[in-house]
């Protein structure tokens, strides 16, 4: 995405240069390469004879598309319930995160307290940990506070986000202090200042964080697999795995393609609808 954006915002004087055009061409090639698996998934999900056959890898859609794979996939798992569980997990995590990262980001950006810098680095250290090593300690904690096999147990470890705190600290720090001082003169409390000065001005950063958080937790597999036992509490990823994780057998690619499409559809639609806003917020917040 980056080079194409650069291209469109290039000053007029450099528009005739050849390098940006090469860059633009390369981006097109990359975009096509990136699209191939998604296109194949679309095509394969409606291919009647989805298994075997020399035409299986073809990107050209069949003359007679079928909805059989979608019906099979839909019937293979309790999708409505999984959608609901995934939505609850993602929304719950994000809601709490927005509160915690705003307050923590403000504290690290604007509140002077002893050891602030040091504490901030310790906080960032979290980003270095591979999530897998935290599975056992996190699970023990979740079990001890009685959240084993609950959706809340899936959400709990993510309520505080080092990445989000870092992002908000940077966003808040770049907002002119004078604005806050003006509000202070008018007698605004800390929470009012955050609410009326910082949050509205850092909206793009919030949006960018929301995209990252929602996609990460929507797609997460291993942690929900560890916490959840009851079939009716499974999120989409764990439910979908029932067909993609065959051990010694082979797989029905059409059904897998249809199932995968069902899982990513909500996020894909959301992204297409709000595409411009998302891109803008990534640009302003400087992620990616």
């Amino acid at each position, binding site marked *: 995405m980056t080079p194409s954006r650069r291209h469109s915002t290039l000053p007029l004087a450099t528009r005739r240069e050849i390098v940006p055009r090469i860059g633009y061409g390369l981006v097109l090639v990359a975009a096509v390469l990136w699209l191939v698996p998604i296109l194949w998934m679309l095509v394969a999900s409606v291919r009647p004879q989805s298994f*075997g056959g020399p035409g299986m890898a073809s990107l050209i859609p069949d003359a007679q598309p079928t909805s059989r794979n979608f019906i099979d996939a839909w019937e293979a798992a309790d999708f409505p319930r999984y959608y609901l569980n995934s939505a609850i997990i993602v929304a719950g995590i994000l809601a709490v995160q927005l509160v915690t990262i705003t307050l923590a980001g403000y504290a690290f950006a604007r509140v002077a307290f002893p050891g602030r810098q040091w504490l901030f680095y310790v906080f960032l250290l979290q980003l270095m940990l591979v999530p897998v090593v935290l599975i*056992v300690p996190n*699970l023990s904690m979740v079990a001890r506070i009685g959240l*084993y096999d609950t959706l809340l147990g899936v959400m709990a470890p993510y309520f505080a986000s080092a990445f989000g705190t870092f992002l908000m600290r940077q966003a808040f720090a770049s907002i002119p202090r004078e604005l806050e001082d003006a509000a202070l003169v008018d007698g605004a409390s800390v929470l009012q200042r955050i609410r009326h000065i910082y949050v509205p001005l850092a909206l793009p950063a919030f949006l960018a964080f929301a995209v990252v958080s929602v996609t990460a937790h929507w797609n997460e597999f291993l942690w929900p697999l560890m916490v959840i036992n*009851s*079939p009716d509490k499974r999120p989409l990823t764990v439910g979908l795995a*029932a*067909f993609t994780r065959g051990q010694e057998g*082979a797989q029905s690619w059409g059904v897998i393609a249809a199932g995968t499409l069902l899982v990513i559809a909500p996020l894909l639609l959301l992204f297409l609808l709000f595409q411009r806003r998302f891109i803008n917020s990534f640009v302003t917040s400087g992620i990616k």
Partner: protein
Amino acid sequence: MPLSRRTFLAALAAAGVVTSAPSRAQPSTEIELFFPVPVDGQLARDMTSMIKEFSDTHPGIKATAVFTGSYDETLIKTRAAMKAGKPPAAVIMSANFVLDLKIENELTNLDALIKADGLTNDKFMNQFFPALHANAVIDRSVYAVPFHNSTPLLYVNADHFKEAGLDPDKLPQTWDELTAAAIKLTKREGDKVTRWGLMIPSNYDYLGWMMSALTMCNGGRYYNEEFGGEVYYDTPTMLGALTFWNELIGKHKVHPAGEQKGPAVSTAFLSGNTSMMLLSTGSLTHVRTNAKFPYKVAFVPKNVRNAVPIGGASLIIPAGVDGERQKAAWVLIKWMTSPDKNGWWSRATGYFAPNIAAYEAPEMKEFLGKNPDAKVGVDQLSVAKPWFATYKTVPVRKALEDEVQAVLAGKKQPKEALVAAQKAADEILKPYVDQTALKLPGM
């Protein structure tokens, strides 16, 4: 049969109505069974309905089937749950993880439960095929009960055989014949191969199993069946096996280079892109349902002798499950490995049923009569050996797999790869060896 079962269930329901008042007063024991999905999504539902049937026919026990991902993820989840103080009552565990779990004291010894049923360990284990005992019994104590098992098989596309002038009734029995057939079956257009002669899966887990099959067919053992601290990677038998595989790729050019994933191999076979493959008996039902051409199966061809490792999974009870939950888990395990249920699951999946009596049932005889290919896997059991199991089975297996993958990708020579694999494995095994074989009286 369906009628009689329905009557039975109806009678049971009626009995339930009559006795519902007292039974409701008794709290039911809740147990959960962790299970990896062996073949496809359909089977996850089959497992769920099987467990539901168990709960319906066993008042007082409420069992839940918990899907836990792949075999490796099931191990991770089981261990994490145990450390969190929430061990599941029973787990369908890859049969070669049993030894490692026992070494780490993470299993319930089943001897007392068997004794309480009035059986000896030998009598209990004799229900199952002898080849399966070594992965369930450790130092004369029973730690696991075989549930569904497999061996590698040679799958052959009979149409391709005829077309290449080979006789589909005379399948390759030796490595010589296998190589000769693969050369005839491979189709080329210039330098490009349009059809491979043979494919062998080489993703993690499958690769270790296939290497042990080839090594065993070459007279080797792969690991010390009696002691979890020794593997035989840098040996002539494994060197021969790996060189054979490597030459199928580099010298004869009848097998694609690089990592081949199991599902990709079966897809290639079903779509006619490879004429032969080595794959688990666990794929048999899938191949039978989806092959649009006549196919045949045979023993894995030999160089020195016929021998294959077993695969599949066993039921275990984790350590820390006791009292009523342990008793209920034991009832569930015995029910699932009974000839009736075991045979049903075998016909649904393609795995063979470990319980010998399952093959006496009329449904099974009829099924084998219709599908003689399913019988080949059972026959091969007479030459089956135990499955590779050591201290820290997964890392020790990966030590070999990483090196073999380098060979299959053309980046390393077999000998140097096996020397490196042996060194890496020995290092992983060292703490255990120091605590066992090298721990001597300090007097």
